[in-house]
């Protein structure tokens, strides 16, 4: 039987990567000098599994590498080695190397061997210092290659009484011997007790076996390998001299251990070469599909199967009803359709939940990153994380990774001060960076906060004035000033600190977040640190929408952005500068955006009081959208306008309504921005 080992490799790589994550997180927690037995056990077990698996599945270089790591960990586990900072760092580098090697094995590309070799050399050096004192005795098996051709063997085999209790069966041993050549066994009944004294669980017989044929001594040793120590055994060649006759159990050991590795070596080599070939073939065919898989809890899958089952029942019920339908069955039809609606909704909710992953997937890389940065920058920082179980759409998760890295790096690099400065400012030496995630309405909020120096309002403002982004900034709020950080090319090398600035690439961060339909805000207090808050939609695929009518067109406004809808009272409308209108709602003034104007449509009426004002909030700003009528609320599936047509300002996508018509989804943040720029242009034109 030939079994393709290839099929187990994906599982092996996946579980190894999980193991490496565990190793990494434990190592990051570990303090030099104190080795918690359970922690060490955990990382040892992970390394041990990776070593065993990689050897089994043909990744010999990973196995060789991990073996050294495992040996070192084993010494720590046995208390023979101290946990030093050097060791922890070396193990962390090893984790990186193994991760690289696994990725290389998975994707079939060559990895950076230099780095691996370097870390391996470091590991060997560390191991070497202990190895000299602890060379395992008998590691080199003696050469036993002096067995001439033999005609057969005489084996005297006398099991100790409790040999059977190890699950070893005399019949099995004899069956194996019989498989090698012609065998004669003479049983010695001498030890047989009287029937009354007989203990059925104990071995009491002994045998003298003669085995004919040219059988190697090691083959016989292998048969008795498992019972070595549980029996008296003497193996002598037939017709040979009796000098090497009696075989004490201890001597059998190295010989018995010998055959296995000797046999295994060529097999392993063969396997490797065929793997190389296979990997070569795969290199071309494997695309990025590898990364687009998703791990789903079995309970979620079960729930889906269950729901599909219910859907099938409803469908067959409706099918039967349709076969001979008459009006008196209309109630049952209604019931059936209601059931169908419920099934569909539940199915939809469950399918969507499959795409949801806990945000810990995005957070997990940060302990390591902060640890490494601290070493580099000579800072002391504690990373706190909370809300890691908050679930987020997989696509959103993938796209939020880079912006998060940027923000955390900034917090560590520029936010937290070096220990001396912190002490001088009366703070604790160790700074804190806090990552937090939680749900709020239809959004997920991610906060990255630090207790560092905070943003320097004056210098940002000065820079903004210098760059002509604002005139004097007299009336600007903190939020508006900090918002300059997100301006493209707001190079701030001299703004926040003297080392470098926060602004580098922040415009990219903001653009990525906006592309996800999200927003980012900054809060900062001098001396007390800053908080960046990212607001993201839960999913990109479906949204709850309010259908509105403008002229003959239907638009969809995301329900999450709607605050309220109201009828316009003309007395509350103020027109400024001829073009912009403000509506006084309670104590606030909202800019009014006439949707028909923004999209160039012909409305029912251009009179404000004939329409309805939908108050919305996007990107932290409120506005009133003027529409002709409010229609239904419904969930809509978002279709990308960009892939099907092109990007349109103020529109985030499209959907198909129940009657087949296409409706455009209003991008609230976008349209507020659009109208603001429009009025700005009008202002500057007027001035």
């Amino acid at each position, binding site marked *: 039987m030939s079994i393709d080992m290839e099929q187990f490799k994906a599982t092996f790589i996946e579980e190894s990567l999980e193991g490496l994550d565990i190793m990494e997180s434990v190592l990051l927690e570990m303090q030099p000098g104190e080795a918690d037995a359970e922690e060490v056990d955990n990382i040892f077990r992970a390394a041990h599994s990776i070593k065993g698996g990689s050897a089994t599945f043909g990744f010999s270089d990973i196995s060789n590498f991990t073996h050294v790591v495992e040996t070192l960990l084993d010494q720590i586990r046995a208390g023979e080695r101290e946990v030093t900072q050097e060791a922890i760092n070396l193990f962390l580098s090893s984790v990186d190397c193994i991760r690289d090697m696994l990725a290389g094995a998975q994707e079939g590309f060559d990895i950076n061997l230099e780095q691996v070799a370097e870390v391996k050399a470091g590991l060997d050096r560390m191991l070497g210092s202990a190895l000299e004192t602890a060379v395992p005795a008998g590691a080199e098996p003696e050469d036993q290659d002096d067995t001439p051709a033999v005609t057969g063997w005489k084996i005297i085999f006398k099991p100790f009484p409790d040999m059977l209790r190890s699950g*070893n069966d005399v019949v099995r041993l004899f069956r194996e011997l019989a498989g090698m050549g012609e065998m004669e066994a003479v049983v010695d009944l001498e030890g047989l007790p009287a029937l009354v004294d007989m203990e059925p669980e104990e071995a009491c017989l002994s045998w003298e076996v003669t085995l004919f044929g040219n059988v190697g001594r090691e083959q016989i040793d292998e048969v008795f390998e498992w019972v070595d120590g549980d029996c008296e055994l003497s193996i002598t060649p037939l017709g040979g001299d009796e000098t090497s006759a009696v075989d004490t159990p201890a001597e059998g*050991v190295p010989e018995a251990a010998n055959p296995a590795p000797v046999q295994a070596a060529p097999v392993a080599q063969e396997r490797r070469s065929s793997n190389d070939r296979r990997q070569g073939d795969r290199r071309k065919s494997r695309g990025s599909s590898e990364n687009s898989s998703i791990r789903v809890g079995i309970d979620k899958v079960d729930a889906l199967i269950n729901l599909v089952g219910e859907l099938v029942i409803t469908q067959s019920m409706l099918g039967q009803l349709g076969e001979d339908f008459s009006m008196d069955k209309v109630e049952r039809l209604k019931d059936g359709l209601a059931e169908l609606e419920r099934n569909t909704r539940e199915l939809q909710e469950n399918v969507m939940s499959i795409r949801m992953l806990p945000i810990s997937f995005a957070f997990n890389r940060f302990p390591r990153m902060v640890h490494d940065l601290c070493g580099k920058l000579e800072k002391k920082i504690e990373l706190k994380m909370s809300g890691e179980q908050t679930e987020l759409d997989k696509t959103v998760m993938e796209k939020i990774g880079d912006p998060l890295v940027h923000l955390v790096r900034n917090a560590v690099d520029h936010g937290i001060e070096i220990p001396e400065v912190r002490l001088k400012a009366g703070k604790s030496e160790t700074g804190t960076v806090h990552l937090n995630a939680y749900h709020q309405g239809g959004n997920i909020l991610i906060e990255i906060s630090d207790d560092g120096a905070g943003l320097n309002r004056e210098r940002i403002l000065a820079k903004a004035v210098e760059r002509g982004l604002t005139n004097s900034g007299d009336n600007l709020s903190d939020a508006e000033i900090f918002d300059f950080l997100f301006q493209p090319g707001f190079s701030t090398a001299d703004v926040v600190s003297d080392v470098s600035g926060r602004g580098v690439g922040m415009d990219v961060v903001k653009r990525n977040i906006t592309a996800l339909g999200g927003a980012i805000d900054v809060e900062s207090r001098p001396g007390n640190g800053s908080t960046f808050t990212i607001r993201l939609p839960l999913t990109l695929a479906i949204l709850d929408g309010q259908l509105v009518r403008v002229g003959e067109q239907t638009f969809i406004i995301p329900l999450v952005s709607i605050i309220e809808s109201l009828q316009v009272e003309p007395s509350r409308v103020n027109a400024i500068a001829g073009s912009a209108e403000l509506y006084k709602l309670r104590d606030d003034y909202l800019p009014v955006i006439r949707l028909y104007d923004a999209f160039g449509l012909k409305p029912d009426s251009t009179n404000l009081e004939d329409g309805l004002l939908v108050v919305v909030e996007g990107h932290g700003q409120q506005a009133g959208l003027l529409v002709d009528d409010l229609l239904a609320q419904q969930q809509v599936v978002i279709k990308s306008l960009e892939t099907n047509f092109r990007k349109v300002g103020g529109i985030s996508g499209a959907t198909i309504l129940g009657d087949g018509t296409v409706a455009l989804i209003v991008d609230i943040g976008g349209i507020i921005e659009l109208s603001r720029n429009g009025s700005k242009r009008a202002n500057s034109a007027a001035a």
Partner: protein
Amino acid sequence: MANILAVDDSASMRQMVVFTLRGAGHKVTEAADGQVALDLAKRQRFDLVLSDVNMPRMDGITLARELRALPAFKFTPILMLTTEGGMGKKQEGKAAGATGWIVKPFNPEQLLATIKKVVG
């Protein structure tokens, strides 16, 4: 064919062992650690137990010892899957009541050959 209990905390090893044994016609039950295996063994009989040594919750050595204490497992063959070629774990396993061992890495053919020795 034999009714086998396969115990390993590594999913890929388990997958390989299970696939190989089922392919040869054996009935296989899986367990991810010693504790799970012991709980299973208290409820049903097996013809053979294959167990990894290093596992969370309960390791293979302890499992062997606990199994031997169960009347139904007094003589059941228990094979340890050890990574070490060295004698340490083998002797420890034997002392705990294991029947024998298979040294990792092994390939499916080697596994089947060993199983055949034990259960025929």
